[in-house]
């Protein structure tokens, strides 16, 4: 093969130019990470989530009293400050310690449900988006039907029918979140399948599984990550609401944020606000933390 002098020069100059202008892939990733770690949303989100993860892992490290027993020497409904940080509830239990211990159930169930939904939703979305056809039509109809009823309603019905145990609750939320993830992944897959690199793979006789798994999937991983983080926020939302409705998966005396709000909010009119406000804030901050993190990941991947 012969090469002409101009061509060599062209290529060399072209590449030098690009090398200066465009960073390598590693640098791009590094830059993305740098952007992420410097984003205020990400930092705040990490601190909030970090605190709750710590509470979930080692509540004994942070608590001050037994969350299930009344604090000795302190009467029920004592406001924050007098011997307890966040006051005591109607049974004299320490609100702070209950909130710390309440992190664990939600931090186990929400990620577990999200993982189930992410796994099946991604698979379903990839396959329906790539193959399309009548199977896709049918599955899309079923997903649409599930989406047409608010997830929380279906969750109430299913959990009631199957029994309010932690595995049932996790399985139910996992199942109910499949359609939303599948829909997002399907749309992304559809867009990818239009691109010529997929046609090129078909032209070299690649098997469909290879095209879906190795060619398309790496290009939609970002979409999946963002969608899954957003779903994690909604899983917390749904779990907390179920617990608020009494479907906590544990005993009525176990520390649980949603349940504690439910058991105490009626005393707010009697100005006993602390047993309601602190668990409510716990749920709120956890959701906000996850949302901030999802948003900053989204921003970093877009840049």
């Amino acid at each position, binding site marked *: 093969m012969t090469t002409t002098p101009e061509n060599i020069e062209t290529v060399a100059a072209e590449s030098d130019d690009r090398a200066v202008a465009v960073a390598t892939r590693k640098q791009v990733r590094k830059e993305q990470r740098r952007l992420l770690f410097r984003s205020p949303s990400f930092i705040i989100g990490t601190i909030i989530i970090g605190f709750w993860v710590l509470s979930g892992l080692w509540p004994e490290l942070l608590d001050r009293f037994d969350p299930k027993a009344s604090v000795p020497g302190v009467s029920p409904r004592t406001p924050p400050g007098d011997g307890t940080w966040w006051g005591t509830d109607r049974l004299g239990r320490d609100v702070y310690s209950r909130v710390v211990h309440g992190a664990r159930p939600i931090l186990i169930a929400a990620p577990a449900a999200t993982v189930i939904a992410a796994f099946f939703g991604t698979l379903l979305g990839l396959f329906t988006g790539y193959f399309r056809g009548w199977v896709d039509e049918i599955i899309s109809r079923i997903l649409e039907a599930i989406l*047409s*009823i608010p997830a929380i*309603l279906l969750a109430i019905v299913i959990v009631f029918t*199957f029994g309010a145990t932690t595995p049932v609750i996790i399985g139910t939320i996992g199942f109910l979140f499949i359609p939303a993830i599948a829909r997002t992944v399907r749309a992304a897959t559809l867009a990818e399948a239009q691109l010529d690199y997929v046609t090129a793979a078909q032209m070299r006789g690649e098997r469909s599984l290879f095209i879906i798994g190795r060619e398309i999937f790496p290009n939609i991983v970002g979409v999946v990550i963002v969608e899954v983080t957003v779903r994690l926020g909604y899983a917390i939302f749904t779990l907390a609401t179920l617990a608020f409705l009494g479907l906590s998966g544990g005993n009525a005396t176990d520390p649980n944020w949603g349940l504690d709000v439910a058991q105490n*909010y009626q005393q707010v009119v009697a100005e006993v606000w602390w047993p*309601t406000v602190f668990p409510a804030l716990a*749920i709120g901050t956890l959701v*906000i933390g996850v949302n901030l993190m999802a948003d900053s990941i989204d921003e970093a991947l877009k840049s």
Partner: protein
Amino acid sequence: MKRFIIRRLLLSVVTLGIILILITLIPNIAPGDPARKIAGGTASPERLAAVTESLGLDKSVIEQLTDLVTDVFTLDLGESFTRPGTSVWSLVSTSLFNSTKLVVFALLLVLPVAIIGGLVAAYRRDTWLDRVIVNLGVALSSLPEFVVGALFLVLLAVPIDFFRVVADPPAGASFLTELQYLLLPVFTVLTVYFGYIARITRASTITAIESDYTRTAFMRGLSTSEVFRKHVLRNSLVPTVAVVGTQLGYLFGGMVGLELIYNYPGLGRMIFDAVDSADYPLLRGGVLTVAIIYMLATLAADLIIAWMNPRARLSLSEGS
């Protein structure tokens, strides 16, 4: 347009059919005896039998399904199980009316505020105002309504007399009084939905602002407000309409937490009570109502979109 509506309606009927199947299947595939779980371990045999019957579990799955389809087509959802003699329809319609009041009032507040928020953020893109709107919206969205509702109770209802701790006004209250009672629930909806709607409006408005036809309009010598009014809005509000359409079902049936905290007799709470008391006929009626609302809302949204955007008309009538 006719073809589009027919096609769209057919799709809705199919979806409704799938929901009917789902509702029938759930108690049938539950492990163990769902009737016993619902009735409670200590229930009397009579009570258990009654629950089993209300669930339809004494019949075959096919019979259950055909019964349900007949009920739906004859618009006769039967009688409530816990309140014999009261038709499901009368209970559903009362709750539906209450939910409608709440939703309409909430939308009247949420839509203008959130849409204007999104437009302002898009127009003032990358300024502090934009960042505040976007970050606030991100942080507050997907907060459970009962959490926001509980915090409003503590922060507003208790210290300020004007705000009410319950949303259900006393019988015979005037319209304005009703609004006053509904104020905190509506604020709660605003908090939860503001970011969601504002962000969607912002994104589509930015797309519209950056598009070539907006450039054409500016180059033609139109002022910024004319460009927004005549060219940007109609394009940028399409996704907002779609989102509001899909969220209406949730607003009607999903606000269980909010309705409990403000003691408001809406659809969500009715369904929750039905589940709690094992009133299966009432539960079916409630869930079906919510599904039908979702269907009508998305249909309406699609029609509005088709009216706003001629290309959507084309693609929807030919099938996606």
